[in-house]
């Protein structure tokens, strides 16, 4: 397992719009901004259900300060002592030149933090999941779809303890190791590439008092199921258009408050949360400023123009419009319409209600609420070309397969384990090269088995979203070409 996976925390951020005069957790006035987009494509323009998510109040922040906080402040306050981390990963491939001192030598997804004993710690920031190398460059905001959570996260952290010595460093390491040991059973995945973000957050909630944030070694509410539902990590640049966070649109209200819940691994008091809250609006504002990468290969502009027409006739009612007439409806498509894997929804309306209640009784509920829907949000498609695999569970390897459901592989394996090589990117189908194992279970064993995506596993289904099936081959080609321009 890569060093970056030692520390896995998911901060899912969002941005949006409007104004208010409420107060945040630090007692400061909430400043409200107005949204850059609206529901320009109205529900009336299609025959789809009309569950459109309204915009919600957001606290304003400073994007520059937000990036600085993101890569320098203690997003997560525990981790591996710096002395050990330097032995584990002495020469990380991607670092931030704007960092200073020892921090400048840390990998992009680790922040330098100092604990109460003065121990310097390499602690994860949000970029472990929300940044990824793409063709040799680190792209902040691109969800990393090549992380491997198929092994026991606790095992890696425990092993790192062999590099930790001395009383204060051991104490610092042990706090982190204990927390990871508590949540590790719930964040192990069947397949490399998909993310256990939901279960991670649930596991953190289960061990905490929602009001005073005190950590309990034994869970206070029933822990999530150990078969974690897989999620694909959505890119941050979508957030400027979205009114709600997460695939079901359940994160409503102040997104800065919601995103903090994924960073509470070692936030053990209201004061700790207030420290996070002080920087969260800036970070949210920074995320709102991020733009998607530009498609780096040639585009047939004539074909793309043809695709635009097809897209707007077929897809825009849910996914919005792009170019000069920007719109995004923030539409929740009911599960019986979209037909994709229902596991997230089933859990949210089953045992997951405990977590909904936890949040809505917690410190974070002062400005935000969790409100799951019985459907999935059709996301904005900016930069969609870079975000394979597709659907909320990452079950479909290419856009072409997404738009032609009978051709989707039911058992497939990533041909690559990172997004580094341009030659491994399929420009025709928009996705990373993969091998269709054609239900050959034997072919899925042995070397690379962790990278096999089995759509027969609960939560991993590739059904639904059949809206492209009716396209002709030429129309499909045109839409794919158009998507490269977004």
């Amino acid at each position, binding site marked *: 397992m890569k*060093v970056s996976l030692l520390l896995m925390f998911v901060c899912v951020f969002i941005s949006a719009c409007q104004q208010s005069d409420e107060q945040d957790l630090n007692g400061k006035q909430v400043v409200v901004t107005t949204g850059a987009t609206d529901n320009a494509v109205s529900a009336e323009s299609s025959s789809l259900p009309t569950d459109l998510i309204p915009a919600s109040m957001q606290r304003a922040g400073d994007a520059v300060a937000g990036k600085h906080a993101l890569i320098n402040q203690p997003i997560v306050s525990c981790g591996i002592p710096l002395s050990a981390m330097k032995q584990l990963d002495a*020469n990380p491939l991607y670092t931030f030149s704007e960092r200073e001192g020892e921090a400048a030598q840390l990998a992009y997804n680790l922040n330098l933090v100092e604990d109460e004993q003065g121990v310097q710690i390499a602690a994860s920031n949000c970029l472990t999941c929300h940044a990824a190398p793409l063709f040799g460059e680190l792209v902040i905001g691109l969800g990393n779809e090549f992380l491997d959570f198929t092994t026991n996260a606790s095992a890696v952290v425990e*092993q790192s*303890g062999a*590099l930790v010595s001395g009383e204060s460093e051991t104490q610092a390491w042990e706090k982190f190791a204990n927390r990871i*040991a508590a949540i590790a059973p719930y964040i192990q995945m069947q397949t490399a590439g998909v993310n256990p973000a939901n279960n991670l957050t649930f596991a953190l909630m289960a061990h905490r008092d929602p009001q005073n944030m005190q950590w309990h070694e034994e869970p206070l509410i029933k822990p999530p199921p150990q078969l974690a539902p897989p999620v694909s990590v959505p890119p941050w640049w979508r957030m400027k258009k979205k009114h709600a966070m997460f695939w079901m649109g359940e994160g409503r209200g102040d997104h800065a408050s919601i995103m903090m819940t994924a960073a509470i691994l070692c936030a053990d008091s209201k004061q700790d949360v207030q420290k996070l809250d002080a920087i969260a609006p800036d970070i949210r504002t920074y995320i709102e400023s991020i733009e998607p990468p530009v498609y780096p290969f040639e585009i047939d502009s004539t074909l793309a123009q043809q695709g635009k027409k097809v897209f707007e006739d077929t897809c825009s009612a849910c996914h919005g419009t792009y170019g000069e007439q920007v719109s995004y409806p923030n539409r929740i498509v009911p599960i019986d319409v979209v037909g994709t894997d229902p596991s997230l929804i089933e859990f949210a309306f089953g045992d997951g209600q405990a977590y909904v209640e936890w949040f809505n009784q917690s410190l974070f509920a002062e400005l935000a609420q969790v409100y799951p829907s019985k459907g999935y949000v059709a996301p904005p498609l900016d930069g969609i070309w870079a975000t394979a695999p597709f659907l909320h569970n990452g079950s479909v390897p290419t856009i072409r397969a997404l738009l032609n459901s009978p051709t989707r592989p039911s058992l497939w394996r990533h041909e690559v384990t990172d997004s580094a090589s341009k030659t491994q990117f399929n420009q025709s189908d928009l996705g990373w090269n993969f091998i269709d194992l054609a239900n050959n279970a034997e072919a899925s064993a042995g070397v690379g088995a962790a990278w096999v995506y089995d759509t027969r596993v609960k939560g991993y289904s590739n059904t639904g979203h059949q809206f492209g099936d009716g396209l002709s081959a030429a129309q499909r080609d045109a839409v794919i070409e158009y998507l490269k321009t977004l």
Partner: protein
Amino acid sequence: MVEVALSFYGSNRFWHVLGRCKYRFCLLGAATLALTACSEGGSQPTRNAADYPDQFRQQAEVIAQGLKRLRESPSTKDWLVDSSTPAAFVQPGAPFETWLFLALMRDQHGRRYAMQQRLARLKVTDERAEAISQWNFSDVLALDYRLEPVGGHSAIDTHTVQQADRVALSLAGTSAAQSKLWIGGFTTTKTTKKTTQRQCEASYSIQTPQLNLLFEQFSCASEQRASTILVTRSESMRVSGEYRFQGRDLVLDGRGWLERAWGVPPDTNQSAVVFDRAWLWLEDTADIQLQRSRRRSGRGPMISTGSVSKPSLSGRSDVGRDQTAPSTLTQVVFADGAAQIGTHTFPSEFRLTEPSHAIDVVLTSTHTPETAGGIELNRLMAVAIEGSHTGVGFVSYAVTKGLTSDVPE
């Protein structure tokens, strides 16, 4: 990635051997003369001792000081000359190399034996010495060797430990050209047969005053890398040879492993986590390699991981080209038994379960209070296996209790 690399240093006895070595170097200082030249101008880029972790640096400094005394207080005593200029360290900046050979064998009468031999090489100066004499103290070799019976047959006096002070008797050396290391009568020679990206055929000849063994390697070793450590770890190899004991020649056959490491070792004596290891031969069934992490504090989870490979042939010489690739043991639990060896603080029994492979066995140490010796940082002991499977193996147990701050003589 780091798993084996870290565990390796957590499971060896090198520090114990070197701990003894450092005292004996003081004795050497009174007797050895300026043959220990450490000349300037070496071209090999190396790290300074100050860059090393504390424990390593302390050891290196003690040895370097001993060498300085040797130069300042020359002796007129003549010594044998059989060392050559040592081969370069494999990696620049890696002042520490080890070779751990483990073998589990039967003789022609069905009696079982376990052999462990660890060679360690430590750079003690930052310059590679010129061969102005055949003496060279730019590095030190240490050897820890033991051949013991497993399973109740009569004890054979094979317990031998050759320590680093043999270097001072000029009976140790390394040779890159012949891929050879030797300490006194103990010699290890590698012969490379075929090396491609997928094939790494080689043999290792191990010779001791009484034992000749040949390890035959057919597959490439897996590589584990961290910033300061590199470990290559073989799948099981075929082992064959002869043992000369009390005028009788015993023919040995079995299997073995080699772990080769380079790097700058961490200070495992104080680390928050230690590793236990096991290499097991479930006869006619499978070879297993295990690792377990354990906190020195005794709190927190113990996490076991492992792999199994199944030979495709039967019989004693069933290791070779057709051996299957190892697969991960997904449900392995490796637990301590309650029994201890005498008054020592480490267990004498372990229980291994792996439901998906129907494995439920007890591993019993061959050590007795009489043979266990002192407490070491790491106890590498042969074990007999009984339960759902039978066989023999090795367990390396990291001792965390009963140690003093100094390594016992």
